[in-house]
C-alpha cells in the first residue's frame, strides 16, 4: 500500500507526460479497485427461505469497475500532465462589474422566479401535471431552504456546530400534530406556538451544552437529537410510537377549507375543485415562511445581537474581553435557530398530514448541515442554491425510468432499478462537491459592518467558530 502511495505521489510531482509512469499508476488503480470490489461486489450472498445463505458470482461488474478505475486514473494523469498556467491567488475577490451586478440582482431575480414558479408550472403542465413539480420539487426544496436558513443562524453566523437540528423540526411537527388532533386548534394558531415551543426546547437543550466547545458540542447536540427521536418512538401513549400521528388537519385559507366540500375554497370562489389549489397555497405559505426567516436573519445581522453572533464566531475570547455576554449570545442563536426549525416542522406536519419518528433521523440533520456548509456558511443565497441543488437533484433522480427501459432493451438487464442508486449518488455528490468547493458554492461574503465602502471578501477569510 505504501508503495502505491509513493507511486501516486511521484506521479503528482512529475512534469510532462510519462507514459510508463502513467501506465503504472493506472494498473495500480485497477488493482486497488479489484481489492475494493473483490468480496463485496464480486460475491452476492442471498438467503433462501430456510435462512441458509448461498453465493452468486458477479465477475463482470468487477471487471467493468477495474476497467473504469484504469481509464479514470489514466485520464487523471493526462489532465495533470497538461501545461499549467499560473494564476495569481486573490484573497479579496476582484469586484468586477459583472459579478457585482449578479450579486446585486440575484436576490430579486430569485424571488421573482420563486413567486412565478407555481403559476408557470400550472401553465406549462396543466393542473394534474404540475402537481408533482409544485409539491415534490417546489415545496420540498423550500422546506429545506427554510431549514438551511434556520440552521445557518446557529452554524453560519454564531459558529456553533449543531448536529441535532432535526430535533427542533420534530418538536415543531409534533407540537402542531398534537395540538391540532387533541385540542382542535387551527394551523395559524399552532404555527407560532410550535415555533415558541421549539425555541423553548432550544434553550433547554442549549443551556447545559454552552460550556462545551467544538466537537463535544457536536456530539451532545447529536445525542439530544437522537434522544428526542427515541423518546418519540418509545413513548407510545404520547406520540403513537412508530405508528406516528395520522389525519392531521389540513391548512385552511382564511377559514375556507381546501377540501372539495360546500363552503370550501373552490365553492366560495365558484371555480372547479382541484387538488392543485391547496398545493399552490401551501407553496406560498412555505415561501412566505422561508422569506420571513431570511428577512429576520438579514435584519438581525445589523443589530447588536447579530454582530455579537458573528464576533463570537470570529473570536470568542476577544468577545468575552469586550464584555459580550457569550452565554446569552449563544442561547439566542440556539433559540432563534430552533424557532425557525419549529415553524418548518409545523409546516411539514400540515403538508404531510402524517408524521412519524422516521422523518426525523440523523440523516435529516446531516442533510441540512450539508446544505449550510455546501452553500458557503453564512451566505443566504448560497444556502438556497445548495438546497435547490441537493434536494432538487435528489428528487430528479426519481425521473430515471428511461434508464430502466434502456438497460432492459440494450444491455439485456431486466431488473435494473435506477431509484435504488439515489442514496448512493446523493452521498457521492456530497463528497465530490465538498472536495471541489470546500468553501461552498458562494465563496464571497458581504460584511455586516464596514468602513466607507462595502467590499465582498473571500469566504476563506471568515472563521468558522470553535463552539
Amino acid at each position, binding site marked *: 500500500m505504501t508503495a502505491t502511495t509513493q507511486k501516486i505521489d511521484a506521479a503528482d510531482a512529475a512534469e510532462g507526460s510519462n507514459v510508463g509512469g502513467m501506465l503504472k499508476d493506472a494498473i495500480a488503480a485497477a488493482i486497488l479497485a479489484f481489492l475494493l470490489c473483490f468480496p463485496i461486489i464480486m460475491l452476492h450472498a442471498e438467503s433462501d427461505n430456510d435462512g441458509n445463505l448461498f453465493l452468486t458470482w458477479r465477475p463482470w461488474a468487477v471487471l467493468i469497475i477495474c476497467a473504469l478505475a484504469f481509464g479514470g486514473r489514466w485520464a487523471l494523469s493526462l489532465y495533470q500532465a497538461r501545461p499549467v498556467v499560473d494564476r495569481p491567488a486573490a484573497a479579496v475577490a476582484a469586484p468586477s462589474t459583472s459579478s457585482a451586478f449578479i450579486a446585486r440582482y440575484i436576490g430579486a431575480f430569485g424571488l421573482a422566479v420563486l413567486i412565478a414558479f407555481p403559476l408557470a408550472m400550472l401553465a406549462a403542465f396543466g393542473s394534474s401535471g404540475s402537481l408533482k413539480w409544485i409539491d415534490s420539487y417546489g415545496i420540498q426544496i423550500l422546506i429545506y431552504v427554510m431549514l438551511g436558513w434556520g440552521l445557518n443562524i446557529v452554524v453560519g453566523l454564531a459558529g456553533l456546530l449543531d448536529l441535532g437540528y432535526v430535533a427542533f423540526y420534530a418538536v415543531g411537527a409534533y407540537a402542531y400534530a398534537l395540538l391540532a388532533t387533541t385540542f382542535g386548534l387551527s394551523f395559524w394558531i399552532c404555527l407560532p406556538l410550535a415555533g415558541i415551543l421549539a425555541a423553548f426546547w432550544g434553550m433547554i437543550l442549549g443551556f447545559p451544552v454552552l460550556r462545551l466547545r467544538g466537537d463535544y458540542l457536536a456530539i451532545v447536540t447529536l445525542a439530544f437529537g437522537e*434522544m428526542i427521536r427515541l423518546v418519540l418512538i418509545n413513548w407510545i401513549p404520547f406520540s403513537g410510537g412508530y405508528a406516528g400521528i395520522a389525519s392531521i388537519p389540513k391548512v385552511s385559507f382564511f377559514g375556507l377549507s381546501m377540501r372539495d366540500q360546500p363552503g370550501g375554497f373552490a365553492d366560495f370562489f365558484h371555480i372547479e375543485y382541484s387538488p392543485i389549489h391547496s398545493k399552490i397555497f401551501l407553496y406560498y405559505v412555505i415561501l412566505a415562511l422561508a422569506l420571513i426567516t431570511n428577512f429576520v436573519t438579514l435584519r438581525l445581522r445589523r443589530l447588536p445581537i447579530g454582530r455579537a453572533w458573528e464576533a463570537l464566531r470570529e473570536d470568542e475570547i476577544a468577545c468575552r474581553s469586550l464584555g459580550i455576554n457569550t452565554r446569552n449570545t449563544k442561547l439566542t442563536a440556539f433559540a432563534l435557530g430552533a424557532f425557525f426549525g419549529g415553524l418548518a416542522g409545523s409546516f411539514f406536519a400540515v403538508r404531510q398530514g402524517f408524521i412519524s419518528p422516521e422523518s426525523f433521523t440523523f440523516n435529516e440533520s446531516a442533510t441540512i448541515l450539508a446544505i449550510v456548509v455546501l452553500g458557503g456558511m453564512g451566505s443566504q443565497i448560497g444556502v438556497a442554491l445548495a438546497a435547490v441543488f441537493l434536494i432538487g437533484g435528489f428528487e430528479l433522480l426519481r425521473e430515471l425510468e428511461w434508464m430502466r427501459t434502456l438497460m432492459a432493451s440494450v444491455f439485456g438487464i431486466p431488473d435494473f432499478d435506477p431509484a435504488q442508486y439515489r442514496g448512493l449518488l446523493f452521498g457521492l455528490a456530497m463528497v465530490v462537491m465538498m472536495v471541489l468547493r470546500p468553501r461552498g458554492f458562494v465563496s464571497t461574503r458581504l460584511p455586516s459592518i464596514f468602513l466607507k465602502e462595502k467590499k465582498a471578501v473571500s469566504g476563506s477569510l471568515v472563521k468558522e467558530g470553535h463552539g
Partner: protein
Amino acid sequence: MGNFLQQLINGLTLGSIYGLIAIGYTMVFGIIGMVNFAHGDLFMLSAFIALLVFLVLTKILGVMSLALAFVIVLIAAMFLTSVWNWTIERLAYRPLRGSFRLAPLISAIGMSIFLSNFVQVVQGPRNKPVPPMFNEVIHFSPGGSYDVTLQYKQIVIAIVTGVLLFAFWWVVQKTALGRAQRACEQDRKMAALLGIDVDRTISITFVIGAALAAVAGVLYMMYYGVVNFSDGFLPGVKAFTAAVLGGIGSLPGAVLGGLLIGLIEVFWSSYFSTDYKDVAAFAILAITLIFMPSGILGRPEIEKV
C-alpha cells in the same frame, strides 16, 4: 448477584466491541481533528466482507475447522477494510486537509451515506443470517440458584479484543511508527520539520483504525448472528459517544468509554427498560460532559491567545 454477574459479562462483551470502534474515532480525531462519520459504516462494511469471506471458505473451499476459518476471516476482513479506509482517506479527506474544519466533516457524512447505500445496492436490503459459530455455553451458578451462562462467543470476543488491544498498544508505544503517530498528534508541523512523512502517518492511522473496526465488525457479526446494511449507524454513534465520554483523542479513554457505554446499556436494559437504553447512554454522556467538559481522561483544551 447472579443476574449482576450475567449482565457484567454481557456488558463487557458489548463494551469491548464499542471500544474497538471508538479507537478508530479517537485516533483520527487526535491526529487530524476530524470526526470520521463514515467509521460506523466502515464497521458495517467489514461485517459484510467477513460474512462473504466466511461463506467462500466454508461453502466453496470447504474449510472444515471453524477456528482456522475464523482466523482467516479476521485477517482478510482487517486487510480489505484497511484498503477501503485507505482509499476513502486518499479520495475524500486528503484533498480537504488544511481546509476549514467542517469540510472534511461533511465529506465524511457524505461518505457514510454512500457506504450504507452502496452495501444496500450490492448486497440487498434484507437481513443476512450468519451461519452460527462457537455456540457452546458454560453454565455456572455462583453461590445461588441463578444460572449464569458464559457463551464461547463471549470468551472469543474477550480474547481477540485483549490480544489486539495489546498489539495496538505495542505498536503505538514501542515502534517508530507509533512514535511518528504520537508526534503528529502533538504537533503536525513540527513533526513534518523533523522529517516525519505526515501524509503517510495519517494514512497509516486510518489503516489501523479500519483494522480495529474490522475486528469489531467480525465479532459483531459472530455475536449477533445477523448483518444488515443499516447496522453501521447506531454502533457508530455509540462508539463516537464512547470516544467522547472517555475524552476524545485519548486511546485508553476510548476503551474505557466503550466499556462504560456497553455496561450502561446492558445494566439499564436489565434493571429498568430496554426501550430507553440508548436514551440512558446519551443522557449519561450529556451529564458527564456538563461536569467534565473534556471527558473522563481527556486533556482540557487550552486556548492560547
